[in-house]
């Protein structure tokens, strides 16, 4: 274990957790019980400690070594960015007091607030901001280097920073200013390889509401409140993140009072169980995660748009939502965009009509000539393989239900379950769409950022593998390329909405992919332990906003 700062309360917390675990363990049979751990008034707006269950491999929490989406959210506790998204997901001034954009959309001018300081007491200055931009540009490849790739130069004038772009970027505020963790120049200027730098009290210095005081990658992390934070003292004294191997362990720990919140959605069938236990509840809200049906649009029969349209018509999204997600999801919009998104176009219709689907296939000349219930295309039976990742029970069930639904339109679907690695190798080899693909159909998912930034919609359909880096279905269309290009550069909100609506209509018509549903976020937590959770639309409650005083939130 790597201890960064010595802490006195460590042993008492360990024993409290252990006792809570023991007590909880005894009662963990489903009977209502008091949640363990420190429990002030129900829904308290502040707490001594909040314990989170996290999953997966996680590195040190630095901008260069974090690994999971939760790791990124935890990074936001330690570091600040120039803008901070509010509950609606809109960027608001944070370290920058305001943002002024030049007429041509190429220059962003931002005065930096003067009351922000680093954890070691040094003031946070405009020099630090400028340094961060160039440091990420020179750093190893990754999310943040991509975020600053469009930056030409950064100039400092007193406490004001101005950023010059290479070309107008409509997503620049959301994807760069609101995401880039600002680094302390006095720490990092002497470090050449940030991803290999030692991780200790000398490098873990941020400006955020929490300091990372203990880090044991793979086991646990501990964050201590920074009372000097410019937006006010955080509402929770300590945040402990405990790594779990799987959902079942985390849910059991939540029920026995060993932890206070799970950083990942629980499965829908857990909701009544958790809500039924005294002191626990589930925060449910729409989430920008998308579950979709991908197919290789360059391969027969999916190269025929009539086939894709028939599949879309034959997909009973309501049934997937009610039977697989038990209602805890929103049926997919054929035009891709989540109904909660400000860019959602209501005029796009998503229809379920098996008869129309059959008629469409008949019209396209794909008929069942030998009467075996399976249509033929160019003399070959319409038989395809549908891939699903075996570790994801919900997606496997979706695949099973889809196979039954597509049998109704004379398409025989064979479901194959693969482990994640084998699946990725076929569907998205090397995570680079330029490397091609080798599959018929697959149940796939995109994470929240692909919906949170409407600019990413272009990446789903653009035929250029660099611009269309999410185009796993190999879709090609000049019209889509043109709309994607407009979406990248158009920053006027009204015009941008219009372009997004046009692209949604195109996706709903051409169907480069079939949006199945958007699972809701289901965050099981102890309502006794802490009640200050604040969800950002589509992105859940594990974020900075949940821990800063309500009046200081943007």
């Amino acid at each position, binding site marked *: 274990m790597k201890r960064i700062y010595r802490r006195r309360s460590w042993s008492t917390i360990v024993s409290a957790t252990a006792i809570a675990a023991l007590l909880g363990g005894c009662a963990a049979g489903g009977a209502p019980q008091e949640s363990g751990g420190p429990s002030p008034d129900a829904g308290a707006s502040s707490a001594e400690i909040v314990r989170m269950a996290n999953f997966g491999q996680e590195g040190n929490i630095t901008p260069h070594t974090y690994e999971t989406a939760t790791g990124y959210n935890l990074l936001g506790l330690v570091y600040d960015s120039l803008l901070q998204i509010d509950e609606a997901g809109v960027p608001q001034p944070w370290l920058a007091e305001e943002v002024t954009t030049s007429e041509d959309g190429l220059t962003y001018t931002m005065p930096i607030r003067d009351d922000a300081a680093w954890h070691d007491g040094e003031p946070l200055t405009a020099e630090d901001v400028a340094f961060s931009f160039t440091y990420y540009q020179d750093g190893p490849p990754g999310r943040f280097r991509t975020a600053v790739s469009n930056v030409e130069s950064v100039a400092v004038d007193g406490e004001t920073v101005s950023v010059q772009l290479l070309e107008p970027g409509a997503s620049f505020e959301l994807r760069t200013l609101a995401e880039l963790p600002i680094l302390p120049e006095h720490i990092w200027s002497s470090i050449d390889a940030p991803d290999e730098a030692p991780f200790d009290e000398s490098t873990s210095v941020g400006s955020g509401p929490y300091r990372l005081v203990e880090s044991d990658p793979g086991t646990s992390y501990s964050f201590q409140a920074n009372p000097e934070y410019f937006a006010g003292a955080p509402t929770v004294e300590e945040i402990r993140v405990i790594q779990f191997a799987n959902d*079942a362990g985390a849910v059991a720990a939540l029920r026995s009072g060993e932890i206070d919140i799970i950083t990942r959605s629980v499965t829908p*069938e*857990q909701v009544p169980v958790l809500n039924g236990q005294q002191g626990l509840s589930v925060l449910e809200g729409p989430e920008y995660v998308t579950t979709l049906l991908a197919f290789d649009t360059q391969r027969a029969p999916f190269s025929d748009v009539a086939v894709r349209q028939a599949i879309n018509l034959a997909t009973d999204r309501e049934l997937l939502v009610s*039977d697989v997600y*038990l209602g805890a999801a929103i049926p997919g919009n054929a035009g891709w965009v989540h109904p909660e998104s400000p860019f959602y176009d209501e005029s796009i219709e998503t229809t379920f009509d098996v008869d129309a689907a059959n008629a469409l296939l008949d019209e396209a000349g794909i008929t069942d000539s030998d009467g075996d219930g399976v249509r033929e295309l160019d003399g070959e039976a319409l038989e395809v393989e549908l891939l699903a990742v*075996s570790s994801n*029970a919900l997606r496997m*069930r979706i695949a099973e239900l889809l196979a039954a639904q597509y049998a109704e339109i004379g398409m025989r679907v064979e*479901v194959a379950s*693969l482990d994640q690695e084998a699946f990725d190798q076929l569907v998205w080899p090397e995570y680079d769409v330029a490397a091609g693909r080798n599959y018929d159909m697959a149940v796939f998912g995109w994470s929240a950022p692909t919906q949170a930034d409407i600019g990413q919609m272009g990446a789903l359909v653009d035929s250029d593998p660099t611009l269309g880096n999410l185009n796993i279905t190999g879709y090609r269309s000049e019209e889509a390329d043109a709309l994607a290009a407009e979406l990248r550069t158009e920053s006027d909100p009204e015009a941008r909405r219009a372009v997004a609506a046009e692209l949604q209509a195109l996706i709903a018509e051409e169907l480069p992919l079939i949006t199945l549903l958007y699972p809701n976020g289901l965050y099981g937590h102890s309502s006794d332990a802490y009640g200050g959770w604040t969800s950002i639309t589509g992105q859940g409650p594990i974020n900075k906003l949940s821990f800063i005083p309500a009046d200081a939130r943007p």
Partner: protein
Amino acid sequence: MTPKPPSPSHPKTTGIPTVSFRARLAPRELTRPAPRDYTRLIGIVGAVIVGSLVLVAIFAPLIAPYDPTIRAGAPFSPPSAAHLLGTNDVGQDILSELIFGTRVSLMVGVVAASAAMLVGTAIGLVGGYFPRVGSIIMRGVDVVLVLPFLPLLIVLSAYLGRSVLNTILVIAFLIWAPTARVIRSQVLSLSRRDYVTAARSMNARDGYIIRRHVLPRTFLLAIGEFVAATSAAILLESSLSFLGLGDPLQKSWGSVLYWAQARGAFLTPAWQWWVVPPGLLIMLAALGFALLGYALEQKINPRLRRA
């Protein structure tokens, strides 16, 4: 063929010349009653269990109240008159799943055990009949015997991918070794019998001796081994499917358990109708085959035959 032993208390004959056990034991019976021989009863119980499961597997479409692949009711329904064991996470009838699952579980068990028996018998025969070659082959068998079972099973099936065929291959690969050992020891003993030596001295070829003298008397033993191996194979198939290393979309008892686990039935009251029944079935099948195998072995294996 010698005449039947005269004792009326020992009505059946195995066709092997022997003296009456009762006659020899008689003096001790006066002081202490001989322990009753339950072998026959055990065999009948085993046969009844296995027989009923086979019937269920054959007539699954007639017995099952629903098609196990369709949505028969609301997901996660508790047991009711319409669904005696409730429904699973996508509304499939659990009872029907279990009935159809009998097919896959038994099929995998029987096929894997047959394959294991074939391999084991062949290697046992060669190893026993040609002792020099055998001493080398048996070291290989020793290696397979000491391999850590479940970890290897998991590694192999993860590597080969998920399908029923792979499950069968992996199981067969791991359970043939004990059969090979048992068969070899029997063959070792048989091939030194006087009549084998006599046949050999009359210039009989090895193939002839094996076919005529060794194989027929080894075969029964292999059948006993086969039944015991089936029990092991069913358990292994269930373990693999439960861990999600089988084909989770193939209805078997293990995959019913896999879904129960994946959809949280172990943490909710659903365990009573979703976890316990498949568990009991797996236990019952393993027990049935084990009992039958035990009874057969008692009858067949010369080392265990009561004397």
